[in-house]
């Protein structure tokens, strides 16, 4: 992703070891508006990509064009938004230069700062998150450098996807698009054609990644790209915990975001992937806000492999996202824990797919949807058990919580079973925060916002406990903040 490059640039500059000179050029250039083969060639050239990757992008673009011509963007999700003009979008823009950024926190939207305050984010971090120009971020530079050294010692590859295309072509060619093929869907094809940057992680055989790949981002992810591409490979008997996103609210000039995340998990390996998504949701009348169309999929290829998706989705005006698990290896395990909030005019259509292929595979789905204001929240999930998946098990629990009487909660579970030994359980509830609960909390001294936050966090507890500890506390505060003003 752009953030990684940007961070690396800062690191390199600060350490006087600035080796990627081409980045200086990129800083001043922007791809012309609109989408064409030329745009894609421009991006690929800027990234100094090998020929095969350009070909791959162009193939994706051709497919996307055919889809766009035949059926247009997908409309099956329960979300409404104006038609997107794909020729009216910039597909490549360099990270903002120091001069373009706010000079100090005084120039940053006070509302944004107030939210940072509530989340308990330090002043230094506030500066980085809100993109304030900083000469040298002493803390994050030294921290980042330490991280890189530790990771290198363990043999973990952790770099931007552009760098991986140049430095690790064998791994990239083997795995890129192997989980989410370019023809997968409209937005996956678009992402494959124009992805700006992203993250590449390779955990070698038998290595337990010595740190959560999260703190690093927490400091550097101020300039996340619009079309991110993430590829994580966990080789045999390895483990990694990865966190993307940030509890701090993220503003972006680009309204359309379409990311692709691919995870590959080998024998006895495990990936824990946690997301806190807090993109700008639009104002209280539903104006502005990010469209977030994401394709995330994990392939559990090895025996005893395991993937766990945990997501807290509080931002974006439209979210369309189904982190999925292909349980191919025998005894493989897929988990999906999700909290999705839609307040004001936010719309979330999110869920998961669990595809059971191997024997003795098991999956767990815990989904908590919270709707407030005029928000619409849809759980859409598929549990599919193929003929060869003997003794597959799934447990699904979908709970919806409504605040107020203008919002909506919808549950659309699909179950397809082709093996009689499968055990599938599905539980679903819909409830409201009762006036009794609110008054009980108020009488004990909590104000309305504290009461709503407490009740909602209780509702989400089964999911929140799967977040890495350091983010759980902030994510709890975030739930309360996201629902401010929704009651009373």
């Amino acid at each position, binding site marked *: 992703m752009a953030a990684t490059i940007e961070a690396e640039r800062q690191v390199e500059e600060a350490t006087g070891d600035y080796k990627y000179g081409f980045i200086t050029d990129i800083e001043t250039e922007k791809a012309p508006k609109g989408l064409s083969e030329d745009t894609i060639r421009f991006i690929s050239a800027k990234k100094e990509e090998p020929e095969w990757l350009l070909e791959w992008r162009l193939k994706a673009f051709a497919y996307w064009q055919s889809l766009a011509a035949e059926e247009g963007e997908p409309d099956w999700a329960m979300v409404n938004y104006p038609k997107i003009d794909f020729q009216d979008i910039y597909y490549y823009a360099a990270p903002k230069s120091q001069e373009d950024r706010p000079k100090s926190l005084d120039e940053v939207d006070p509302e944004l700062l107030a939210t940072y305050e509530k989340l308990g984010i330090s002043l230094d971090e506030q500066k980085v998150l809100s993109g304030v120009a900083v000469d040298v971020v002493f803390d994050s530079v030294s921290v980042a450098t330490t991280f890189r050294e530790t990771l290198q010692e363990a043999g973990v590859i952790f770099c931007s996807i552009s760098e991986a295309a140049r430095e690790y072509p064998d791994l990239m060619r083997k795995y890129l698009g192997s989980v989410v093929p370019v023809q997968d869907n409209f937005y996956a094809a678009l992402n494959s054609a124009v992805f700006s940057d992203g993250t590449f992680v390779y955990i070698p055989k038998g290595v337990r990644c010595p740190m959560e790949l999260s703190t690093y981002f927490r400091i550097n992810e101020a300039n996340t790209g619009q079309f991110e591409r993430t590829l994580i490979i966990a080789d045999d008997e390895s483990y990694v915990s990865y966190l993307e996103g940030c509890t701090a609210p993220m503003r972006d000039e680009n309204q359309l975001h379409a990311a692709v995340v691919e995870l590959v998990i080998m024998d006895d390996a495990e990936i824990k992937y946690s997301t806190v998504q807090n993109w700008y949701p639009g104002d209280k009348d539903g104006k502005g806000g990010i469209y977030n169309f994401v394709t995330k999929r994990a392939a559990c290829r090895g025996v005893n492999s395991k993937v766990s998706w945990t997501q807290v989705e509080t931002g974006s005006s439209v979210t369309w996202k189904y982190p999925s698990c292909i349980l191919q290896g025998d005894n493989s395990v897929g988990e999906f824990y999700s909290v999705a909030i839609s307040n004001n005019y936010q719309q979330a259509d999110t869920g998961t797919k669990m595809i059971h292929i191997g024997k003795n595979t098991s999956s767990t789905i815990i989904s908590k949807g919270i709707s407030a204001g005029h928000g619409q929240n849809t759980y859409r999930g598929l549990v599919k058990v193929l003929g060869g998946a003997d003794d597959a098990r799934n447990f699904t629990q979908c709970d919806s919580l409504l605040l107020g009487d203008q919002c909506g909660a919808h549950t659309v579970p699909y179950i397809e079973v082709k093996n009689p030994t499968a055990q599938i359980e599905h539980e679903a509830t819909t409830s409201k925060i009762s006036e009794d609960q609110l*008054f*009980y909390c108020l*009488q*004990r001294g909590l*104000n309305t916002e504290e009461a709503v936050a407490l009740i909602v966090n*209780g509702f989400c507890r089964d999911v929140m406990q799967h977040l890495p500890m350091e983010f759980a506390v902030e994510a709890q505060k975030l739930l309360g903040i996201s629902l401010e003003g929704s009651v009373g």
Partner: protein
Amino acid sequence: MLEIKNLHVNVGDKEILKGLDLSLRAGEVHAIMGPNGAGKSTLSYALSGREGYEVTEGTATLNGKDLLDLEADERAGEGVFLGFQYPVEIPGVSNMNFLKTAVNSIRKYRGEDEMTAVDLLKLVRSKAAELKMDPEMLKRPVNVGFSGGEKKRNEMVQMAVLDPCLAILDETDSGLDIDALKIVADGINRLRAPDKAILVITHYQRLLDYVVPDHVHVLADGRIVKSGGKELALQLEAEGYAGLGIADDAA
């Protein structure tokens, strides 16, 4: 300490309290008895600030401060505690977390620093032990799956931890067996102190065997119709509300 004058309260279009006067001095325990529909619960909700209970006339002050002008959470901050007839379940929120949030919200209202996690844990554990609550119950979600007696004990633990200056117990004794009744009585008696006032609202006399009130009032049709000492409760027990010429729906 608590002064209620000419209190009129509507629920919807219906007037339930029709000019209620009541005065509690610090250190006193008052019992309010009365038939169903007399306005007992309305009084407790109006004092604690529940929405939907509209005061149309009269005043209520606590230590000279106008209660009726405050939101429910602000009244809690001023030291008003309501023991519920039907304590509410909050799934996923542990008793401990609930108490921590409540204590710190009240401290914030009073301009005090948050209590440290260690001090809070000590306080809650000691109050739970005094009221013979299994410490494991503190980890369980608030009132979820609790028996009737456990819920009432939980109310008493909350009351002990929050240490209010005015406690209103709204039929906290209803539907309890004798052991649970003793727990509630124990909780109330432990709170008794020269600087606190307690208002026990009950339909039956039996709680008053364990919590001996300083004053007993009879509430009927939205007003206090008779006041006396603890012997008034016994008289009611012997003669019923009919003995005072009051219709009792529950009789």
